[in-house]
Protein backbone atom coordinates (compact mmCIF):
# COMPACT_ATOMS: atom_id res chain seq x y z
CA UNK A 1 0.00 0.00 0.00
CA UNK A 2 1.21 3.49 -0.89
CA UNK A 3 -0.13 6.48 1.02
CA UNK A 4 0.65 10.06 0.01
CA UNK A 5 -0.49 12.97 2.17
CA UNK A 6 -0.20 16.52 0.87
CA UNK A 7 2.82 15.49 -1.17
CA UNK A 8 4.43 18.53 -2.79
CA UNK A 9 7.54 19.09 -4.87
CA UNK A 10 8.74 22.47 -6.04
CA UNK A 11 11.73 23.18 -8.24
CA UNK A 12 12.43 26.85 -7.65
CA UNK A 13 9.21 28.66 -8.50
CA UNK A 14 7.81 25.75 -10.51
CA UNK A 15 5.50 23.35 -8.70
CA UNK A 16 5.81 19.86 -10.14
CA UNK A 17 3.57 18.11 -7.62
CA UNK A 18 1.03 20.20 -5.78
CA UNK A 19 -0.16 18.74 -2.49
CA UNK A 20 -1.43 15.40 -3.74
CA UNK A 21 -3.16 12.97 -1.40
CA UNK A 22 -3.97 9.44 -2.48
CA UNK A 23 -3.85 5.81 -1.42
CA UNK A 24 -2.81 2.98 -3.71
CA UNK A 25 -4.45 -0.25 -2.54
CA UNK A 26 -2.96 -3.74 -2.69
CA UNK A 27 -4.49 -6.50 -4.76
CA UNK A 28 -5.24 -4.38 -7.79
CA UNK A 29 -3.46 -2.54 -10.55
CA UNK A 30 -3.66 1.20 -10.08
CA UNK A 31 -3.01 3.29 -13.14
CA UNK A 32 -1.36 6.68 -12.78
CA UNK A 33 -2.51 8.64 -15.77
CA UNK A 34 -1.51 12.07 -16.91
CA UNK A 35 0.05 14.00 -19.75
CA UNK A 36 3.83 14.37 -19.97
CA UNK A 37 5.10 16.77 -17.34
CA UNK A 38 2.04 16.29 -15.12
CA UNK A 39 4.15 15.14 -12.16
CA UNK A 40 3.88 11.34 -12.47
CA UNK A 41 7.59 10.59 -12.44
CA UNK A 42 8.32 13.14 -9.72
CA UNK A 43 5.65 11.57 -7.52
CA UNK A 44 7.07 8.09 -8.11
CA UNK A 45 10.61 9.27 -7.37
CA UNK A 46 9.41 10.75 -4.09
CA UNK A 47 7.78 7.43 -3.14
CA UNK A 48 11.14 5.64 -3.29
CA UNK A 49 13.03 8.49 -1.65
CA UNK A 50 15.08 9.60 -4.65
CA UNK A 51 13.55 13.08 -4.52
CA UNK A 52 12.82 14.81 -1.25
CA UNK A 53 9.29 16.22 -0.96
CA UNK A 54 9.12 19.97 -0.42
CA UNK A 55 6.14 19.26 1.83
CA UNK A 56 3.94 16.35 2.80
CA UNK A 57 4.71 12.69 3.36
CA UNK A 58 4.54 9.43 1.50
CA UNK A 59 4.75 5.97 3.01
CA UNK A 60 5.00 2.50 1.55
CA UNK A 61 3.51 -0.38 3.53
CA UNK A 62 3.23 1.93 6.52
CA UNK A 63 6.73 3.40 6.59
CA UNK A 64 8.76 5.90 4.60
CA UNK A 65 10.70 3.97 1.95
CA UNK A 66 14.09 4.73 3.50
CA UNK A 67 12.96 3.38 6.89
CA UNK A 68 12.59 -0.16 5.56
CA UNK A 69 15.37 -2.60 6.38
CA UNK A 70 14.83 -4.49 3.11
CA UNK A 71 13.63 -1.82 0.68
CA UNK A 72 13.85 -4.03 -2.41
CA UNK A 73 11.51 -6.54 -0.75
CA UNK A 74 8.99 -3.77 -0.09
CA UNK A 75 9.10 -1.86 -3.35
CA UNK A 76 10.39 -2.80 -6.76
CA UNK A 77 10.63 0.28 -8.92
CA UNK A 78 11.12 0.81 -12.60
CA UNK A 79 11.72 4.54 -12.69
CA UNK A 80 13.38 4.81 -16.04
CA UNK A 81 14.98 2.25 -18.25
CA UNK A 82 18.34 3.99 -18.16
CA UNK A 83 19.07 3.72 -14.44
CA UNK A 84 21.82 1.23 -15.25
CA UNK A 85 25.56 1.64 -15.86
CA UNK A 86 26.02 1.22 -19.61
CA UNK A 87 29.40 -0.47 -19.20
CA UNK A 88 28.11 -3.38 -17.13
CA UNK A 89 26.35 -6.49 -18.38
CA UNK A 90 22.71 -7.01 -17.48
CA UNK A 91 23.46 -10.01 -15.27
CA UNK A 92 26.29 -8.24 -13.43
CA UNK A 93 24.02 -5.26 -12.84
CA UNK A 94 21.42 -7.53 -11.27
CA UNK A 95 24.08 -9.38 -9.25
CA UNK A 96 25.35 -6.09 -7.81
CA UNK A 97 21.82 -5.00 -6.92
CA UNK A 98 21.07 -8.42 -5.41
CA UNK A 99 24.20 -8.33 -3.25
CA UNK A 100 22.87 -5.39 -1.22
CA UNK A 101 20.02 -7.59 0.06
CA UNK A 102 21.83 -10.93 0.12
CA UNK A 103 19.57 -12.17 -2.68
CA UNK A 104 20.98 -15.43 -4.10
CA UNK A 105 22.28 -15.78 -7.65
CA UNK A 106 19.47 -18.25 -8.32
CA UNK A 107 16.95 -15.41 -8.03
CA UNK A 108 18.98 -13.26 -10.43
CA UNK A 109 18.82 -15.99 -13.06
CA UNK A 110 15.13 -16.43 -12.29
CA UNK A 111 14.25 -12.80 -13.07
CA UNK A 112 16.45 -12.91 -16.19
CA UNK A 113 14.42 -15.90 -17.36
CA UNK A 114 11.14 -14.27 -16.34
CA UNK A 115 11.81 -11.10 -18.32
CA UNK A 116 13.12 -12.87 -21.39
CA UNK A 117 16.59 -11.35 -21.02
CA UNK A 118 18.60 -14.56 -21.23
CA UNK A 119 19.95 -14.05 -24.77
CA UNK A 120 21.41 -10.66 -23.80
CA UNK A 121 22.18 -11.21 -20.10
CA UNK A 122 25.93 -11.24 -20.62
CA UNK A 123 25.95 -8.30 -23.02
CA UNK A 124 26.78 -4.81 -21.88
CA UNK A 125 23.75 -2.62 -21.28
CA UNK A 126 25.11 0.21 -23.44
CA UNK A 127 24.10 -1.71 -26.57
CA UNK A 128 20.55 -2.42 -25.40
CA UNK A 129 17.48 -1.22 -27.25
CA UNK A 130 14.88 0.76 -25.33
CA UNK A 131 12.77 -2.37 -25.02
CA UNK A 132 15.59 -4.50 -23.60
CA UNK A 133 16.48 -1.71 -21.17
CA UNK A 134 12.85 -1.67 -20.09
CA UNK A 135 12.89 -5.44 -19.49
CA UNK A 136 16.09 -5.11 -17.46
CA UNK A 137 14.44 -2.39 -15.37
CA UNK A 138 11.48 -4.68 -14.72
CA UNK A 139 13.85 -7.55 -13.88
CA UNK A 140 15.56 -5.32 -11.31
CA UNK A 141 12.19 -4.29 -9.89
CA UNK A 142 11.18 -7.95 -9.42
CA UNK A 143 14.52 -8.95 -7.86
CA UNK A 144 13.47 -8.60 -4.23
CA UNK A 145 10.06 -10.21 -4.79
CA UNK A 146 8.50 -6.94 -3.58
CA UNK A 147 5.03 -6.43 -2.09
CA UNK A 148 4.66 -3.20 -4.03
CA UNK A 149 5.64 -2.49 -7.62
CA UNK A 150 6.06 0.96 -9.07
CA UNK A 151 6.37 1.02 -12.83
CA UNK A 152 6.89 4.34 -14.57
CA UNK A 153 5.77 4.06 -18.21
CA UNK A 154 6.62 0.34 -18.32
CA UNK A 155 5.41 -0.27 -21.88
CA UNK A 156 7.42 2.60 -23.30
CA UNK A 157 9.53 1.23 -26.14
CA UNK A 158 8.22 -2.33 -25.93
CA UNK A 159 7.02 -4.24 -28.96
CA UNK A 160 3.39 -5.44 -28.97
CA UNK A 161 4.39 -8.76 -27.43
CA UNK A 162 6.26 -6.93 -24.68
CA UNK A 163 3.29 -4.66 -24.03
CA UNK A 164 1.06 -7.70 -23.61
CA UNK A 165 3.62 -9.27 -21.32
CA UNK A 166 3.74 -6.18 -19.07
CA UNK A 167 -0.06 -6.11 -18.87
CA UNK A 168 -0.16 -9.77 -17.92
CA UNK A 169 2.59 -9.55 -15.35
CA UNK A 170 1.02 -6.45 -13.75
CA UNK A 171 -2.34 -8.19 -13.43
CA UNK A 172 -0.73 -11.41 -12.23
CA UNK A 173 1.26 -9.64 -9.52
CA UNK A 174 -1.83 -7.76 -8.37
CA UNK A 175 -3.78 -11.02 -8.27
CA UNK A 176 -1.19 -12.32 -5.81
CA UNK A 177 -2.23 -9.50 -3.48
CA UNK A 178 0.58 -7.10 -4.31
CA UNK A 179 0.23 -3.38 -4.85
CA UNK A 180 0.89 -2.44 -8.47
CA UNK A 181 1.20 1.24 -9.35
CA UNK A 182 1.75 1.85 -13.03
CA UNK A 183 2.01 5.16 -14.82
CA UNK A 184 1.19 5.94 -18.40
CA UNK A 185 0.25 8.90 -20.50
CA UNK A 186 -1.96 6.63 -22.62
CA UNK A 187 -5.54 6.22 -21.44
CA UNK A 188 -5.98 3.11 -23.58
CA UNK A 189 -3.05 1.41 -21.86
CA UNK A 190 -4.40 2.16 -18.40
CA UNK A 191 -7.92 1.11 -19.41
CA UNK A 192 -6.59 -2.28 -20.52
CA UNK A 193 -4.36 -2.93 -17.52
CA UNK A 194 -5.62 -1.08 -14.48
CA UNK A 195 -8.56 -1.63 -12.14
CA UNK A 196 -8.32 1.76 -10.53
CA UNK A 197 -6.97 5.00 -11.89
CA UNK A 198 -5.46 8.20 -10.54
CA UNK A 199 -5.53 11.01 -13.06
CA UNK A 200 -2.95 13.74 -12.53
CA UNK A 201 -2.58 17.02 -14.36
CA UNK A 202 -0.29 19.94 -13.57
CA UNK A 203 0.69 18.31 -10.29
CA UNK A 204 -2.84 17.85 -8.98
CA UNK A 205 -5.01 14.76 -8.72
CA UNK A 206 -7.95 15.26 -11.12
CA UNK A 207 -9.66 11.93 -10.53
CA UNK A 208 -9.27 8.93 -8.23
CA UNK A 209 -11.78 6.22 -9.10
CA UNK A 210 -12.29 2.75 -10.60
CA UNK A 211 -11.44 2.71 -14.30
CA UNK A 212 -15.01 1.82 -15.28
CA UNK A 213 -16.34 4.86 -13.45
CA UNK A 214 -13.93 7.26 -15.12
CA UNK A 215 -14.72 5.84 -18.53
CA UNK A 216 -18.50 5.98 -18.02
CA UNK A 217 -18.43 9.38 -16.41
CA UNK A 218 -16.27 11.01 -18.96
CA UNK A 219 -17.71 9.33 -22.01
CA UNK A 220 -19.92 12.00 -23.47
CA UNK A 221 -22.70 10.91 -25.81
CA UNK A 222 -22.79 13.25 -28.73
CA UNK A 223 -25.18 13.64 -31.65
CA UNK A 224 -24.10 15.31 -34.86
CA UNK A 225 -26.88 17.03 -36.78
CA UNK A 226 -26.66 18.63 -40.20
CA UNK A 227 -29.56 20.81 -41.21
CA UNK A 228 -30.22 23.86 -43.43
CA UNK A 229 -32.31 25.18 -40.53
CA UNK A 230 -29.63 24.63 -37.93
CA UNK A 231 -30.20 27.89 -36.07
CA UNK A 232 -33.86 27.19 -35.61
CA UNK A 233 -33.17 23.61 -34.44
CA UNK A 234 -30.53 24.83 -32.01
CA UNK A 235 -33.02 27.13 -30.31
CA UNK A 236 -35.51 24.28 -29.92
CA UNK A 237 -32.88 21.91 -28.51
CA UNK A 238 -31.64 24.51 -26.05
CA UNK A 239 -35.21 24.95 -24.84
CA UNK A 240 -35.09 21.22 -23.95
CA UNK A 241 -31.89 21.67 -21.89
CA UNK A 242 -29.59 20.06 -24.44
CA UNK A 243 -26.13 21.53 -24.92
CA UNK A 244 -25.63 22.65 -28.49
CA UNK A 245 -22.40 23.69 -30.21
CA UNK A 246 -22.31 25.11 -33.69
CA UNK A 247 -19.32 23.46 -35.35
CA UNK A 248 -19.75 25.15 -38.71
CA UNK A 249 -22.72 26.75 -40.48
CA UNK A 250 -25.39 24.07 -40.79
CA UNK A 251 -23.66 21.57 -38.47
CA UNK A 252 -24.47 21.12 -34.79
CA UNK A 253 -23.05 18.93 -32.03
CA UNK A 254 -25.69 18.11 -29.45
CA UNK A 255 -24.97 16.79 -25.94
CA UNK A 256 -27.54 15.74 -23.38
CA UNK A 257 -29.94 14.33 -25.91
CA UNK A 258 -30.21 11.28 -28.17
CA UNK A 259 -30.41 10.88 -31.94
CA UNK A 260 -33.99 9.64 -31.60
CA UNK A 261 -35.06 12.66 -29.56
CA UNK A 262 -33.40 15.09 -31.94
CA UNK A 263 -35.03 13.37 -34.94
CA UNK A 264 -38.46 13.45 -33.36
CA UNK A 265 -38.13 17.08 -32.39
CA UNK A 266 -37.06 17.98 -35.94
CA UNK A 267 -39.98 16.08 -37.46
CA UNK A 268 -42.41 17.70 -35.07
CA UNK A 269 -41.11 21.15 -36.00
CA UNK A 270 -40.91 20.35 -39.71
CA UNK A 271 -37.19 20.91 -39.84
CA UNK A 272 -35.23 19.22 -42.62
CA UNK A 273 -32.28 17.05 -41.52
CA UNK A 274 -29.42 16.15 -43.84
CA UNK A 275 -27.51 14.12 -41.26
CA UNK A 276 -28.24 12.67 -37.85
CA UNK A 277 -25.32 10.71 -36.34
CA UNK A 278 -24.88 9.47 -32.80
CA UNK A 279 -21.13 9.75 -31.92
CA UNK A 280 -19.63 7.86 -28.98
CA UNK A 281 -16.47 9.58 -27.76
CA UNK A 282 -13.39 7.41 -27.37
CA UNK A 283 -11.59 6.76 -24.11
CA UNK A 284 -8.79 8.88 -25.39
CA UNK A 285 -11.16 11.80 -25.84
CA UNK A 286 -12.55 11.31 -22.37
CA UNK A 287 -9.07 11.50 -20.94
CA UNK A 288 -8.23 14.49 -23.10
CA UNK A 289 -11.25 16.37 -21.84
CA UNK A 290 -10.35 15.55 -18.24
CA UNK A 291 -6.81 16.83 -18.62
CA UNK A 292 -7.46 19.47 -21.26
CA UNK A 293 -6.61 22.37 -18.98
CA UNK A 294 -3.62 20.72 -17.42
CA UNK A 295 -1.50 19.71 -20.38
CA UNK A 296 1.98 21.05 -19.84
CA UNK A 297 3.12 21.08 -23.43
CA UNK A 298 0.16 21.94 -25.60
CA UNK A 299 0.54 21.15 -29.25
CA UNK A 300 -1.31 22.48 -32.24
CA UNK A 301 -3.53 20.53 -34.61
CA UNK A 302 -2.46 17.06 -35.56
CA UNK A 303 -0.23 16.27 -32.58
CA UNK A 304 -3.22 16.58 -30.26
CA UNK A 305 -4.92 13.74 -32.07
CA UNK A 306 -4.92 10.66 -29.91
CA UNK A 307 -4.30 8.22 -32.75
CA UNK A 308 -1.19 10.07 -33.81
CA UNK A 309 0.20 9.89 -30.33
CA UNK A 310 -0.19 6.13 -30.05
CA UNK A 311 1.25 5.69 -33.51
CA UNK A 312 4.34 7.56 -32.39
CA UNK A 313 4.57 5.37 -29.31
CA UNK A 314 4.30 2.27 -31.44
CA UNK A 315 6.96 3.32 -33.89
CA UNK A 316 9.49 3.87 -31.10
CA UNK A 317 9.43 0.19 -30.16
Amino acid at each position, binding site marked *: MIEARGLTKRYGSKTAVDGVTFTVQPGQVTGFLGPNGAGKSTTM*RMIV*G*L*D*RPTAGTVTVNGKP*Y*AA*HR*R*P*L*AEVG*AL*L*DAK*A*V*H*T*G*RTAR*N*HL*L*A*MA*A*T*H*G*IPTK*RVDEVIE*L*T*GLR*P*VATKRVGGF*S*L*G*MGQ*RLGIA*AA*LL*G*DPRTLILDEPVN*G*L*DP*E*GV*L*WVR*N*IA*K*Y*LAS*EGRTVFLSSHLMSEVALTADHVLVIGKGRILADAPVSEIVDGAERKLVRVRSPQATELAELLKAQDAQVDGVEPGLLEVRGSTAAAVGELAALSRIVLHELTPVASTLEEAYMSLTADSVEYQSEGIAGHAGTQSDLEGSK*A
Partner: protein
Amino acid sequence: MSATVTAPAGGPAPGTTAGSTPVQNVTFWRVLRSEWIKLWTLRSTWWTLASTVVVIVGFALMMALIVQLVGNEMEGAAPEDQAAMGGMLGGTMVVSAGFEMAALVVAVLGALMITGEYSTGMIRSTFAAVPGRLSAFFGKAVVLALVTAVLITVSLALSWLVTYPLLNSNDATVDFGDSAQVRSLFGTVLYVVLVALFALGLGALLRHTAGAIFTVVAIFLVIPTIVQIATFAASQLEWVGTVNKLLPSVAGAQITPNAGAFPDVLDPWVGISVLAGYTVLVLAGAAARLKLQDA
Protein backbone atom coordinates in the same frame (compact mmCIF):
# COMPACT_ATOMS: atom_id res chain seq x y z
CA MET B 1 13.44 -4.64 -29.74
CA SER B 2 15.53 -7.41 -31.12
CA ALA B 3 13.80 -10.47 -32.41
CA THR B 4 16.00 -12.70 -30.31
CA VAL B 5 14.37 -11.53 -27.11
CA THR B 6 11.15 -13.36 -26.63
CA ALA B 7 8.96 -13.02 -23.58
CA PRO B 8 6.75 -15.68 -22.14
CA ALA B 9 3.57 -14.46 -23.79
CA GLY B 10 1.21 -15.84 -21.19
CA GLY B 11 2.79 -13.92 -18.34
CA PRO B 12 5.05 -15.41 -15.70
CA ALA B 13 5.01 -19.08 -14.91
CA PRO B 14 3.08 -19.64 -11.70
CA GLY B 15 5.08 -19.87 -8.52
CA THR B 16 8.18 -18.12 -9.79
CA THR B 17 7.71 -15.03 -7.65
CA ALA B 18 5.49 -16.30 -4.90
CA GLY B 19 7.29 -15.27 -1.76
CA SER B 20 9.99 -17.92 -1.97
CA THR B 21 12.87 -15.52 -2.47
CA PRO B 22 15.19 -15.14 0.50
CA VAL B 23 15.78 -11.42 0.95
CA GLN B 24 17.98 -10.18 3.80
CA ASN B 25 18.34 -6.83 5.50
CA VAL B 26 20.67 -4.31 3.93
CA THR B 27 23.89 -4.23 5.95
CA PHE B 28 27.16 -2.37 5.37
CA TRP B 29 28.85 -5.67 4.66
CA ARG B 30 26.34 -6.48 1.90
CA VAL B 31 26.67 -2.97 0.47
CA LEU B 32 30.45 -3.52 0.39
CA ARG B 33 29.95 -6.76 -1.55
CA SER B 34 27.71 -4.92 -4.01
CA GLU B 35 30.28 -2.15 -4.51
CA TRP B 36 32.99 -4.78 -4.89
CA ILE B 37 31.00 -6.47 -7.68
CA LYS B 38 30.32 -3.11 -9.31
CA LEU B 39 34.02 -2.21 -9.34
CA TRP B 40 35.22 -5.42 -10.95
CA THR B 41 32.46 -5.62 -13.57
CA LEU B 42 33.56 -2.48 -15.39
CA ARG B 43 36.31 -2.42 -17.98
CA SER B 44 37.45 1.05 -16.91
CA THR B 45 38.58 -0.47 -13.60
CA TRP B 46 40.92 -2.90 -15.31
CA TRP B 47 42.28 -0.18 -17.57
CA THR B 48 43.06 2.23 -14.77
CA LEU B 49 44.57 -0.45 -12.54
CA ALA B 50 46.79 -1.74 -15.35
CA SER B 51 47.86 1.83 -16.18
CA THR B 52 48.81 2.42 -12.56
CA VAL B 53 51.09 -0.62 -12.47
CA VAL B 54 52.68 0.41 -15.78
CA VAL B 55 53.27 3.97 -14.53
CA ILE B 56 54.89 2.93 -11.24
CA VAL B 57 57.06 0.18 -12.72
CA GLY B 58 57.93 2.30 -15.77
CA PHE B 59 59.05 5.29 -13.73
CA ALA B 60 61.07 3.01 -11.44
CA LEU B 61 62.87 1.42 -14.39
CA MET B 62 63.66 4.83 -15.85
CA MET B 63 65.06 6.05 -12.56
CA ALA B 64 67.06 2.85 -12.11
CA LEU B 65 68.64 3.43 -15.53
CA ILE B 66 69.57 6.96 -14.46
CA VAL B 67 71.17 5.53 -11.32
CA GLN B 68 73.11 3.13 -13.55
CA LEU B 69 74.26 5.97 -15.84
CA VAL B 70 75.30 8.17 -12.94
CA GLY B 71 77.10 5.18 -11.42
CA ASN B 72 79.07 4.66 -14.64
CA GLU B 73 79.97 8.35 -14.75
CA MET B 74 81.23 8.27 -11.20
CA GLU B 75 83.39 5.21 -11.69
CA GLY B 76 86.72 6.05 -10.08
CA ALA B 77 85.40 9.03 -8.14
CA ALA B 78 86.17 9.32 -4.46
CA PRO B 79 84.20 6.80 -2.36
CA GLU B 80 82.61 9.59 -0.27
CA ASP B 81 81.26 11.23 -3.45
CA GLN B 82 79.79 7.89 -4.53
CA ALA B 83 78.16 7.48 -1.14
CA ALA B 84 76.63 10.95 -1.41
CA MET B 85 75.20 10.04 -4.79
CA GLY B 86 73.65 6.87 -3.40
CA GLY B 87 71.93 8.96 -0.74
CA MET B 88 70.48 11.31 -3.34
CA LEU B 89 69.05 8.57 -5.52
CA GLY B 90 68.25 5.90 -2.99
CA GLY B 91 66.38 2.68 -3.63
CA THR B 92 63.07 3.87 -2.14
CA MET B 93 63.19 6.98 -4.30
CA VAL B 94 63.68 4.91 -7.43
CA VAL B 95 61.02 2.33 -6.57
CA SER B 96 58.33 4.95 -5.84
CA ALA B 97 59.36 7.54 -8.45
CA GLY B 98 56.05 7.34 -10.33
CA PHE B 99 53.79 7.75 -7.31
CA GLU B 100 52.41 11.17 -8.24
CA MET B 101 51.45 10.15 -11.75
CA ALA B 102 50.04 6.90 -10.37
CA ALA B 103 47.98 8.90 -7.89
CA LEU B 104 46.42 10.84 -10.77
CA VAL B 105 45.55 7.60 -12.59
CA VAL B 106 43.97 6.12 -9.46
CA ALA B 107 42.17 9.45 -8.98
CA VAL B 108 40.46 8.86 -12.33
CA LEU B 109 39.26 5.49 -11.00
CA GLY B 110 38.05 7.11 -7.78
CA ALA B 111 36.14 9.84 -9.59
CA LEU B 112 34.64 7.37 -12.10
CA MET B 113 33.30 5.16 -9.32
CA ILE B 114 30.70 7.80 -8.55
CA THR B 115 30.51 10.08 -11.62
CA GLY B 116 30.02 7.03 -13.84
CA GLU B 117 26.88 6.27 -11.84
CA TYR B 118 25.58 9.81 -12.19
CA SER B 119 26.24 10.03 -15.92
CA THR B 120 24.54 6.70 -16.67
CA GLY B 121 21.67 7.02 -14.16
CA MET B 122 22.93 3.99 -12.21
CA ILE B 123 22.97 6.14 -9.07
CA ARG B 124 19.16 5.90 -8.93
CA SER B 125 19.34 2.10 -8.85
CA THR B 126 22.05 2.32 -6.20
CA PHE B 127 20.06 4.64 -3.95
CA ALA B 128 16.82 2.71 -4.50
CA ALA B 129 18.58 -0.38 -3.13
CA VAL B 130 20.39 1.53 -0.38
CA PRO B 131 18.11 4.46 0.47
CA GLY B 132 20.35 5.50 3.38
CA ARG B 133 22.78 6.53 0.61
CA LEU B 134 25.75 7.13 2.93
CA SER B 135 26.54 3.44 3.32
CA ALA B 136 26.66 3.12 -0.48
CA PHE B 137 29.05 6.09 -0.66
CA PHE B 138 31.28 4.90 2.16
CA GLY B 139 31.10 1.39 0.75
CA LYS B 140 32.66 2.79 -2.41
CA ALA B 141 35.27 4.61 -0.32
CA VAL B 142 36.26 1.44 1.57
CA VAL B 143 36.47 -0.65 -1.62
CA LEU B 144 38.50 2.07 -3.35
CA ALA B 145 40.90 2.49 -0.41
CA LEU B 146 41.41 -1.26 -0.11
CA VAL B 147 41.98 -1.85 -3.82
CA THR B 148 44.29 1.16 -4.09
CA ALA B 149 46.37 0.09 -1.09
CA VAL B 150 46.86 -3.42 -2.47
CA LEU B 151 47.47 -2.11 -5.99
CA ILE B 152 50.16 0.36 -4.93
CA THR B 153 51.82 -2.15 -2.60
CA VAL B 154 51.97 -4.73 -5.39
CA SER B 155 53.21 -2.12 -7.88
CA LEU B 156 55.99 -1.03 -5.53
CA ALA B 157 56.97 -4.65 -4.96
CA LEU B 158 57.10 -5.20 -8.73
CA SER B 159 59.20 -2.05 -9.14
CA TRP B 160 61.58 -3.28 -6.48
CA LEU B 161 61.83 -6.63 -8.23
CA VAL B 162 62.53 -5.32 -11.74
CA THR B 163 64.96 -2.62 -10.62
CA TYR B 164 66.83 -4.83 -8.14
CA PRO B 165 69.59 -5.98 -10.54
CA LEU B 166 70.38 -2.42 -11.61
CA LEU B 167 70.18 -0.96 -8.11
CA ASN B 168 72.15 -3.81 -6.54
CA SER B 169 75.11 -3.24 -8.84
CA ASN B 170 75.10 0.43 -7.74
CA ASP B 171 74.64 -0.18 -4.00
CA ALA B 172 71.28 1.59 -4.07
CA THR B 173 68.76 -1.09 -3.06
CA VAL B 174 65.98 -0.59 -0.55
CA ASP B 175 67.13 -1.39 2.96
CA PHE B 176 64.14 -3.08 4.61
CA GLY B 177 65.98 -3.01 7.93
CA ASP B 178 65.83 0.81 7.88
CA SER B 179 62.54 1.84 9.46
CA ALA B 180 62.69 5.27 7.79
CA GLN B 181 62.81 3.65 4.34
CA VAL B 182 59.98 1.25 5.13
CA ARG B 183 57.92 4.12 6.53
CA SER B 184 58.46 6.18 3.37
CA LEU B 185 57.19 3.32 1.18
CA PHE B 186 54.21 2.83 3.46
CA GLY B 187 53.70 6.61 3.22
CA THR B 188 53.64 6.35 -0.57
CA VAL B 189 50.77 3.85 -0.38
CA LEU B 190 48.96 6.10 2.08
CA TYR B 191 49.42 9.15 -0.16
CA VAL B 192 47.91 7.46 -3.22
CA VAL B 193 44.99 6.07 -1.17
CA LEU B 194 44.21 9.56 0.14
CA VAL B 195 44.34 11.10 -3.35
CA ALA B 196 41.99 8.39 -4.65
CA LEU B 197 39.51 9.10 -1.85
CA PHE B 198 39.88 12.85 -2.47
CA ALA B 199 38.89 12.23 -6.11
CA LEU B 200 35.93 10.05 -5.09
CA GLY B 201 34.70 12.88 -2.86
CA LEU B 202 35.16 15.46 -5.62
CA GLY B 203 33.29 13.17 -8.01
CA ALA B 204 30.33 12.99 -5.62
CA LEU B 205 30.43 16.76 -5.10
CA LEU B 206 30.62 17.66 -8.80
CA ARG B 207 28.69 14.64 -10.24
CA HIS B 208 30.63 15.12 -13.47
CA THR B 209 33.50 12.95 -14.70
CA ALA B 210 35.49 15.50 -16.68
CA GLY B 211 34.94 18.20 -14.07
CA ALA B 212 36.14 15.99 -11.23
CA ILE B 213 39.24 14.76 -13.10
CA PHE B 214 40.12 18.28 -14.24
CA THR B 215 39.82 19.57 -10.67
CA VAL B 216 42.03 16.79 -9.29
CA VAL B 217 44.67 17.48 -11.92
CA ALA B 218 44.48 21.20 -11.16
CA ILE B 219 44.87 20.67 -7.41
CA PHE B 220 47.60 18.02 -7.53
CA LEU B 221 49.54 19.05 -10.63
CA VAL B 222 48.82 22.47 -12.13
CA ILE B 223 48.52 24.63 -9.01
CA PRO B 224 51.58 23.06 -7.30
CA THR B 225 53.66 23.67 -10.44
CA ILE B 226 52.68 27.34 -10.49
CA VAL B 227 53.28 27.79 -6.77
CA GLN B 228 56.64 26.06 -7.00
CA ILE B 229 57.78 28.37 -9.76
CA ALA B 230 56.70 31.21 -7.49
CA THR B 231 58.69 29.84 -4.53
CA PHE B 232 61.86 29.94 -6.60
CA ALA B 233 61.10 33.21 -8.37
CA ALA B 234 59.98 35.00 -5.21
CA SER B 235 61.75 33.14 -2.43
CA GLN B 236 61.81 36.29 -0.29
CA LEU B 237 57.99 36.21 0.03
CA GLU B 238 57.26 34.18 3.12
CA TRP B 239 53.56 33.55 2.34
CA VAL B 240 54.38 31.84 -0.95
CA GLY B 241 56.40 29.29 0.98
CA THR B 242 53.57 28.84 3.46
CA VAL B 243 51.05 28.25 0.68
CA ASN B 244 53.45 25.79 -0.91
CA LYS B 245 53.98 23.70 2.18
CA LEU B 246 50.21 23.51 2.82
CA LEU B 247 49.34 22.34 -0.70
CA PRO B 248 47.75 18.85 -0.58
CA SER B 249 50.41 17.41 -2.86
CA VAL B 250 53.41 19.02 -1.12
CA ALA B 251 52.17 18.34 2.41
CA GLY B 252 51.21 14.77 1.60
CA ALA B 253 54.43 13.98 -0.26
CA GLN B 254 56.68 14.73 2.74
CA ILE B 255 56.20 11.20 4.01
CA THR B 256 57.27 9.70 0.67
CA PRO B 257 60.82 9.25 -0.56
CA ASN B 258 60.17 11.87 -3.28
CA ALA B 259 59.29 14.91 -1.20
CA GLY B 260 60.95 17.48 -3.46
CA ALA B 261 63.48 20.03 -2.25
CA PHE B 262 61.79 23.01 -0.59
CA PRO B 263 63.26 25.26 2.08
CA ASP B 264 60.14 25.13 4.22
CA VAL B 265 58.16 21.87 4.62
CA LEU B 266 55.97 20.13 7.18
CA ASP B 267 57.01 17.15 9.25
CA PRO B 268 56.11 13.94 7.29
CA TRP B 269 53.36 12.81 9.67
CA VAL B 270 51.97 16.33 10.01
CA GLY B 271 52.03 16.66 6.22
CA ILE B 272 50.13 13.44 5.54
CA SER B 273 47.64 14.46 8.24
CA VAL B 274 47.07 17.75 6.39
CA LEU B 275 46.31 15.80 3.18
CA ALA B 276 44.06 13.47 5.16
CA GLY B 277 42.29 16.55 6.54
CA TYR B 278 41.59 17.89 3.05
CA THR B 279 40.30 14.46 2.02
CA VAL B 280 38.00 14.23 5.03
CA LEU B 281 36.64 17.71 4.24
CA VAL B 282 35.86 16.77 0.64
CA LEU B 283 34.29 13.45 1.67
CA ALA B 284 32.17 15.18 4.31
CA GLY B 285 30.98 17.78 1.80
CA ALA B 286 30.17 15.00 -0.66
CA ALA B 287 28.28 13.04 2.00
CA ALA B 288 26.24 16.12 2.88
CA ARG B 289 25.32 16.74 -0.75
CA LEU B 290 24.39 13.07 -1.27
CA LYS B 291 22.20 13.01 1.79
CA LEU B 292 20.44 16.34 1.30
CA GLN B 293 19.95 16.63 -2.45
CA ASP B 294 17.80 14.74 -4.91
CA ALA B 295 19.54 11.89 -6.66
